[in-house]
């Protein structure tokens, strides 16, 4: 294969990774008690693609930062939250870094 064509194939292969979400935000019902919600963080941190987790009771939000080039299927996310005893109402993939979400959550607490 000529080098230009090989480079093109390589770049095309990388393309899906370039648009892959950095963070998954989940809206969760029943998220009212931090003592009871620890299971969510424990469960999500065990998933191999998880880099970080932010939980906000105020925003009824659970955010998961993904490791580079990795993803977690919705079905696995829903199962993790259900196993922790909660109900996921929406799942959204964003490019927002987890630290920005953490800062946003802290700001909302003030």
């Amino acid at each position, binding site marked *: 294969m000529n080098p230009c064509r090989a480079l093109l194939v390589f770049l095309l292969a990388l393309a899906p990774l370039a648009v892959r979400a950095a963070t998954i935000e989940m809206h969760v019902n029943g998220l009212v008690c931090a003592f009871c919600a*620890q299971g969510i963080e*424990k469960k999500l941190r065990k998933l191999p693609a998880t880099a970080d987790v932010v939980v906000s009771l*105020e925003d009824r939000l659970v955010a998961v930062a993904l490791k580079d080039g990795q993803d977690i299927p919705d079905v696995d996310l829903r199962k993790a939250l259900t196993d922790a005893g909660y109900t996921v109402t929406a799942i959204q993939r964003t490019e927002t870094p987890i630290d920005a979400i953490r800062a946003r959550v802290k700001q909302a607490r003030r």
Partner: protein
Amino acid sequence: MARLPEFLMWALVSTAPALAIGKPIAFANGTTVMIEYGAGTMQEAQIFYAPQYNYSVGGGHVEFDSDITTETVRITYARLNYLLHRWNLESAQANVYVWGGAGAATGNTFTGTEFAFNAGGQADYETRRIYASLKTDLQKANAFSIRVDTLQLGIAPYEHDYNQIATWFVVQARQYTDDIHHGTEVAALLRLFKGGAWIEAGVTNGGKLQAMAMFNF
């Protein structure tokens, strides 16, 4: 004061739909350890492991000391807790738990060791500002039948968030059968929790210490 069943019914109706005591199930693959000092009339320690979010297994030890007679009963038991139903609402959660188990009892009003069974249930409702639970727990053997009914109503002065310390002011009303305590024992409690640690302490209308510590991991 009205007897506890009427009082509980009134409290449930008047606080509905806004109606927690520590929950007997933490989360899937979670362990809960609880120690309670109940005003000198009841001391209890429990440990439960939850393979799934909706049930846990474990055991405990409870000691009842009557403040009317000289009766003392000690029971060591195994128990299964089951989450019958959970309502995950947008800004609230409600649960109904039931449990049952069996164990061995000793005491100073009977000889030897008796087989004892236990059964109970709990309904709770909580938002980030309001908390209520109703719990009943029966320990029964040939020599005794002790039921403890507990109502807790709590209010939080602020809405805590994850990784923040939570503060609750809780009023607890408790009644015992089998002459453990006469009348309704009322306690005012301060509850604090953060991460997997929960502590609460207060004083009863009889001036006695009521305290509980619970840990999830």
